[in-house]
């Protein structure tokens, strides 16, 4: 096949990718969109395989067989609660693939992947740098999410300076390569530096900030693919890599806003060095916290017109999604309107809680994002907060001195009654007491999330049947 024909097919697959992402703008068209993107990938792969410059298929087959087996196993076995880990791994593999392609291009003396000249060398250098950082950075992120590594920030004094020096070293190696002075040894030093940088950039970032990190590494994996496209002058790599890079950057920004963190703050670790001025939990809670029982709350729910459920990741950890859905079903059968109010960081990655609820067969039009639901809390009879804490903390609105001041929160305290299902009064990730728990209109339901929801549904059913009798 001639080169221009190949490029036309690459254009087709780029168009299919764009159409696929467009499909993802609505749940109804999303399955088709994903399929469309997959067809785009198939087109790109088949056209490449038919390319006359491919001389041997043995290496390709071996690699594809290994990759496809692992891919199928991962995709079918993964628990939805572990999606962030899987995405972290996929980010890393994407970066690793671009890294391997770049090194192969450097070593190749002829053929379609060989690169030379100023542009080629700069592209190889950048692909190696970004690809390797993505590979090891994602591995560390995976380790933290899977709890193989401690979630707290790990580092040493001056790690920011260390990273800065390493980055300068990496860039000067790329300049050396571009000037045509570097051999294979120099390239391998660059690989080593970039692999170390991936680790030292991510270890100082705490577990709570992982959603930002995954989104950012997602972006890096796209940029690495685009950089690899510049090595070979391959248009489909450039376009698709750019799309993914843009996607990751936008999600990173959304997460940063939702968590009230600056991107620079997450990356260069300015986390909670203030300390000291933390509020005294006893003072906030003393004598004001009202504990309640499932029976009492079921009576409230009985007369409620509108109920909003605010889930956090604690809900998923207690495996309580289905129990919550059952409770919502019971309420809906009684004519009560039930809505789920979701904070952007309700799960462990962007949109994670939506997936967990969808798995429990909650309709997507009942899941409302924070901006949409906040104006309606004032007309809500009962809010049930389960497994969420910091994202409901009114200090973020009221206390200028608070570390979370300015963080967008769900204004649950404006509802008539707030029920908080929680094991104890312990603080969330931010380590702060939550004055919401001491409010006049707040009732605490202490206990295991799933257990409490089951008891609540049971009590509600009892009320319903005794009324009917």
């Amino acid at each position, binding site marked *: 096949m001639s080169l221009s024909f190949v490029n036309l097919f690459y254009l087709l697959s780029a168009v299919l990718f764009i159409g696929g992402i467009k499909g993802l703008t609505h749940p109804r068209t999303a399955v088709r969109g994903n399929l469309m993107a997959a067809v785009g990938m198939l087109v790109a792969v088949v056209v490449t395989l038919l390319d006359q410059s491919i001389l041997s298929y043995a290496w390709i087959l071996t690699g594809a067989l290994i990759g496809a087996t692992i891919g199928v196993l991962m995709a079918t076995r993964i628990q939805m609660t572990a999606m962030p880990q899987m*995405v972290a791994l996929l980010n890393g593999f994407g970066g690793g693939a671009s890294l*391997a392609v770049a090194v192969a291009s450097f070593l190749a003396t002829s*053929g379609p992947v060989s690169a030379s000249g100023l542009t080629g060398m700069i592209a190889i250098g950048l692909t190696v740098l970004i690809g390797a950082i993505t590979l090891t950075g994602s591995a560390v992120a995976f380790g933290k999410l899977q709890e193989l590594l401690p979630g707290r920030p790990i580092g040493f004094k001056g790690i920011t300076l260390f990273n800065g020096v390493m980055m300068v070293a990496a860039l000067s190696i790329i300049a050396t390569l571009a000037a045509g002075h570097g051999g294979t040894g120099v390239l391998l030093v660059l690989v080593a530096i970039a692999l170390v940088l991936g680790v030292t950039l991510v270890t100082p970032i705490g577990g709570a900030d992982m959603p930002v990190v995954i989104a950012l590494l997602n972006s890096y994996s796209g940029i690495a693919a685009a950089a690899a496209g510049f090595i070979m002058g391959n248009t489909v790599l450039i376009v698709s890599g750019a799309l993914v890079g843009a996607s990751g950057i936008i999600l990173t920004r959304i997460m940063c806003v939702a968590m009230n963190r600056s991107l620079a703050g997450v990356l260069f670790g300015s986390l909670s060095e203030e300390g000291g001025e933390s509020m005294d939990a006893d003072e906030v809670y003393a004598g004001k916290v009202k504990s309640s029982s499932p029976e009492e709350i079921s009576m409230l729910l009985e007369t409620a017109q509108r109920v909003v459920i605010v889930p956090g990741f604690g809900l998923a950890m207690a495996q309580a999604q289905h129990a919550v859905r059952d409770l919502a079903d019971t309420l809906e059968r009684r004519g009560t309107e039930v809505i789920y109010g979701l904070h952007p960081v309700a799960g462990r990655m962007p949109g994670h809680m939506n997936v967990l609820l969808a798995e429990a067969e909650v309709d997507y039009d009942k899941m409302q994002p924070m901006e949409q639901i906040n104006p309606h809390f004032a007309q809500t009879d009962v809010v049930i907060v389960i497994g969420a804490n910091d994202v409901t903390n009114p200090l973020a609105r009221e206390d200028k001195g608070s570390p979370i001041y300015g963080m967008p929160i769900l204004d649950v305290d404006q509802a008539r009654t707030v029920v908080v299902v929680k094991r104890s009064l312990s603080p969330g990730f931010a380590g702060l007491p939550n004055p919401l728990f001491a409010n006049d209109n707040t009732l605490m339901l202490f206990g295991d999330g799933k257990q409490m929801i089951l008891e609540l549904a049971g009590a509600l059913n009892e009320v319903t049947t005794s009324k009917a009798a």
Partner: protein
Amino acid sequence: MDMLIMQVSLFVLAVILGIELITKVPATLHTPLMSGSNAISGISLVGALLAAGSGDINSLWVSILGMVAVALATINVVGGFLVTNRMLQMFSRRR
């Protein structure tokens, strides 16, 4: 040089298009968006195929690195599209 400018233009336009598109994706679908875009970034498979199939006689390493890249990129493509499909099915299912 002309070629490079063309490619850079393509990159910049694709970034702008990406930003326009992605901002329209609702928060509900952000996780499938991430796994799906992961599958798309597996497009480096194209480069990997060219390297693994180059039959470069001067260096076995080109083929080996190509094979590693094919394996990693295939995990991304196959795993990414499959898991995205699995999630999206849950959203489209109606009781």
